[in-house]
């Protein structure tokens, strides 16, 4: 069946993008009242909302760490976010995504400044497309900045896929379903420069060489997203200044 779909025609993808083009992205910081930091983000058809609470007292208490803050991350899909209604509650996929996403953010959060505290990151997928984990991480990252959580830099996430032998940036649903490989990345960016890899997963089949190319392509995409994250944060601060 998958042979019949033709995902790349004349160098263009189904939605007209070139292989190294991102989907349209929209980012808005500080959209919720209750959360200490928040961010609404669209990336293609992904629509996600991130909220950060903390540093705050750990509940339940026995989870508290006397030497540093604990970081929690919950990736959660709304039942109506996908074609076929999803039963509410975490499934195995959500648990794994929450784990690797938390680890990515944890690696740059200055946890040691807040012993006995928790920093809780909740991301709701309101509409899901391919790459929802990357969209959520990008939103979470902005929400953390919005919440004023001290970090070594910022996390920016994007996936690369291999589709009909071609590496493409930020794959959409069809490319994810029928492609030969999917490689989500998240990078640690400091002073506008990519420093290292904070999240990396992969499933599919690629050669060593393709993998190296994929990293380069992902880095290019990440830098573009990083600029949009920065803008969203700047805009929020400008608005606040005007309001004051």
């Amino acid at each position, binding site marked *: 069946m998958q042979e019949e779909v033709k995902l790349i025609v004349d160098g263009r993808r189904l939605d007209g993008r070139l292989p190294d083009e991102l989907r349209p992205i929209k980012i808005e910081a500080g959209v*919720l*009242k209750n959360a200490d930091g928040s961010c609404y983000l669209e990336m293609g058809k992904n629509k996600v909302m991130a909220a950060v609470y903390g540093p705050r007292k750990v509940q339940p208490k026995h989870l508290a760490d006397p030497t540093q803050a604990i970081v929690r991350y919950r990736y959660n899909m709304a039942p109506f976010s996908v*074609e076929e209604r999803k039963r509410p509650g975490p499934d195995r996929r959500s648990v794994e995504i929450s784990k690797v996403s938390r680890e990515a953010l944890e690696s740059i959060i200055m946890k040691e400044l807040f012993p006995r505290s928790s920093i809780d990151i909740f991301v709701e997928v309101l509409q899901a497309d391919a790459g929802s984990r990357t969209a959520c991480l990008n939103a979470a990252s902005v929400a953390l900045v919005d919440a004023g959580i001290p970090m070594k830099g910022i996390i920016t996430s994007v996936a690369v896929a291999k589709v009909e032998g071609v590496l493409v940036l930020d794959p959409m649903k069809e490319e994810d379903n029928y492609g030969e490989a999917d490689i989500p990345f998240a990078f640690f960016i400091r002073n506008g420069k990519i420093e290292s890899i904070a999240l990396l997963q992969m499933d599919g089949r690629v050669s060593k060489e393709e993998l190296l190319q994929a990293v380069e392509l992902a880095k290019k995409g990440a830098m573009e997203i990083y600029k949009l994250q920065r803008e969203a944060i700047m805009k929020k601060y400008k608005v606040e200044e005007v309001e004051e």
Partner: protein
Amino acid sequence: MNDDILAEVRRDYVLSKIRDGERVDGRKFDEMRKIEIQTGIIEKAEGSALVKLGNTQVLVGVKMQPGEPFPDAPDKGIIITNAELVPLASPTFEPGPPDENAIELARVVDRGIRESEAVDLEKLCIEEGEKVWLIFIDIWALDDDGNLLDASALGAIAALLNTIVPAERFEIGDDFPLPVRDLPVAITSLIVENRILVDPIKDETSVAKNFLTITTDSEDNIVAIQKSGSYLLPEEKFYEAIELSIRKAREVRKLLAEV
């Protein structure tokens, strides 16, 4: 500890305001917050609505699929309403299955829709006794600044108004708009210090969680009531609240008509 003291000071302030006949956000006792309704924002859902009631935000999505009817209603579609108070929406919400507050919220919203017969369920029969349309109404709290219930009820009916039955996807004929024939509106008041405060904000509910929700249909009939919270409701306040709820529901219903 400091947090506690701050909260107490805040409570005292809210209370003294109320005693003076005022509300902390400057509204009149019988005044709703600003309402915004956006529909159709979740393309993957059959219907959806984002409702903002002041700072309170709720997203409601409707999904539909064929399923088996109940034995005692073989020719009627089925509504299943679920609400999740996800931890994103409030520092006091916790991950996990719906607690008693989420369950109560979902059930009160559900009753308003069900008892007003807002959806013509008989038009959702596919094959009598075998197959009918299931309507899943999922209420997703995004930001709780008080009165999630009215926002949810409003989101639910707005999302239903916006729903297209996905018949083509399931190969059972052409898509058609969900037959909605009434517009139930829930109005929640806070009963405190012998006053009735409509559409209470979170600061106000910190004083007392004495809620009274009255849902009315387009003909001013009462279709659902829920007294929620541990308090004693004087009869005359109940009657006042009914009048108020009917009046306020009419205002809100006008907004719905414009959706």
